[in-house]
């Protein structure tokens, strides 16, 4: 029983990180039709910046979180404004461009931070564990779940209950009409993009608590995000959350039960979903 609960908590906390990472990609992709495969690289950069602020400079962890997110957000925004904007509707070109940026960002990170991976790091307030069901469970994992939940609710509120969210949804459904109604859709697009990239950066720092930081993350994290998208469906918060939870839990139980094959379990789930329900469990519109 204790094993199940621990694994479940592990799965949910890891799933939260996946959600934070994927939601930005899902929104820019599913909502705005813009492909940004450099998303995983943004996760990595956020984590590196966070590490620099929190560990190398020894500053406040929450400041690190913020700065890492902003760094990622700004880079993402720069890529969009400088490059992706000119490739409107050219999906293949966007794919290629952002792959090029994975190479660029990864190599720049190598240049700045060197090739040694960074160990997982946690806020001092969050280190330590608390007792649960006779065992001990890390505080930072619980807070990850907490932060994740807060952000889920915040995002949902943003999408459903605010004018901003309405504009985004309208812009997705009928771009010309929205612009015709006098809405500054471009500004909103930048904001959504920044937000998605920002979330990726934050996810990177929170993820660093479990994963550390290394240079392979550009591709590795992207792959995870894509699996989550395939499983959960694109363009919706519910889809990203569902996919993230499914993959996170499967991963956690897999690692606990048969560690060498945990990876394969995720691939298997993805393949099954593809063969049975290619659009994912909860894509936009469902």
């Amino acid at each position: 029983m204790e094993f199940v609960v621990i694994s479940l908590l592990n799965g949910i906390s890891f799933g939260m990180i996946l959600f934070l990472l994927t939601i930005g990609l899902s929104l820019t992709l599913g909502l705005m039709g813009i492909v940004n495969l450099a998303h995983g690289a943004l996760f990595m950069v956020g984590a590196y910046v966070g590490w620099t602020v929190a560990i190398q400079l020894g500053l406040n962890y929450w400041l690190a979180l913020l700065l890492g997110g902003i760094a990622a957000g700004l880079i993402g925004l720069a890529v969009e404004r400088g490059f992706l904007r000119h490739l409107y509707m050219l999906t293949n070109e966007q794919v290629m461009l952002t792959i090029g940026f994975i190479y660029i960002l990864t190599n720049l990170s190598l240049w700045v931070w060197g090739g040694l991976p960074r160990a997982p790091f946690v806020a001092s307030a969050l280190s330590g564990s608390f007792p649960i069901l006779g065992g001990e469970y890390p505080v930072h994992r619980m807070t990850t779940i907490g932060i994740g939940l807060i952000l889920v609710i915040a995002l949902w509120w943003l999408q459903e209950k605010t004018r901003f969210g309405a504009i985004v949804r309208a812009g997705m459904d009928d771009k010309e009409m929205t612009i015709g109604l006098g809405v500054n859709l471009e500004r909103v697009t930048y904001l959504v993009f920044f937000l998605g990239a920002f979330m990726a950066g934050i996810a990177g720092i929170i993820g660093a608590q479990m994963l550390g930081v290394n240079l392979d993350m550009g591709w590795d994290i992207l792959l995870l995000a894509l699996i989550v998208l395939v499983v959960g469906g694109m363009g919706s918060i519910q889809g990203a959350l569902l996919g993230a939870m499914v993959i996170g839990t499967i991963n956690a139980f897999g690692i606990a039960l048969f560690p060498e094959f945990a990876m394969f379990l995720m691939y298997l789930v993805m393949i099954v979903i593809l063969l049975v329900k290619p659009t994912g469990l909860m894509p936009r519109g469902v």
Partner: protein
Amino acid sequence: MGVTKLKPVGQPWHGQLIRFAPYIVIGAILIILPLFLSPYVQGVLLTKILIFAIFAMSLDLILGYTGLFSLGHAAFFGVGGYTTGILITRFGVDTFWLTAPLSILMATLFAAVFGFIALRVSGLYFLMVTFALGQLLFAVAWQWFRMTGGAFGLKGIPPPNLGIPWLTFNDTSLYYFVLLIFIICYFLLYRIVNSPFGYALRGIREDEPRMRALGYNIWLYKYIAFIIAGLFAGIGGVLFAHWNMLISPRHLGVVTSSLGLFYVIIGGAGTLFGPVIGSAVVIGIEYGASLYTPERGPLILGTLFVIVVMFLRGGISPHLANLWRKVVKYSYGSVKD
């Protein structure tokens, strides 16, 4: 990409020669070049370029001609290489006439399975799936230490054993062997892309609903193209294993697959020769970087790629082709091209 024009049968012979002149010239250069270069350069550079040119051309078949964006094509390259490596180092089968066909067969089988799964979806999803499938294979190679040597891979793969007693391979002879296979592959792929099947692929790339209305079974074409591409990638993998003498998981994974994309796009997709040029350019840059700024190679490549995508749509080779046409026009007055 690029305009195709069918020349009516019965053109004067010197017209035909003009068309083939570039091939003859380049072929001659490729054959004579080793005399001027050190074996080291041949071995390191030229042979590598040719091997990856085969890989790139195979990717171009599905990417440039059919419009399928795959991020997992190295899987078949790797399967070809690993099968050769496993047969030789784990099972002691060392005759090329057995290991090569078996390796190519394996690559083709994997392409048949992966293609079936991946073609359930299209567009970006297709990209994601091919990516994931490639990484799946990467993970298998990484974990299965007994068979694949795990993270270290398989070492000590000897040059091909053709069963010819007086033939032992050195850098130069291996180069010529690879060149021969490259020429055969190029010839075959050239026939394929200019066949009715190849034209159908181009149509599919341009306008799928139109092709369906014309009676084409789109899925079947894509599937067959995918399998053929896997086959040729496997050939590249076999040569790679013999040349590199080592095969490791990263030759199956996304890094190699994305490099393949670089070769094709920088060189020019949909032009069969473009990927060859792309391979030369990229590998040349990697080599140059290793001499002067060893750490910054990927940065340079990534930047070049971004530049090509943003400003040089269609890659380098259409510009070269235009240049060639201008040269020809200049020397022959106007040749109806």
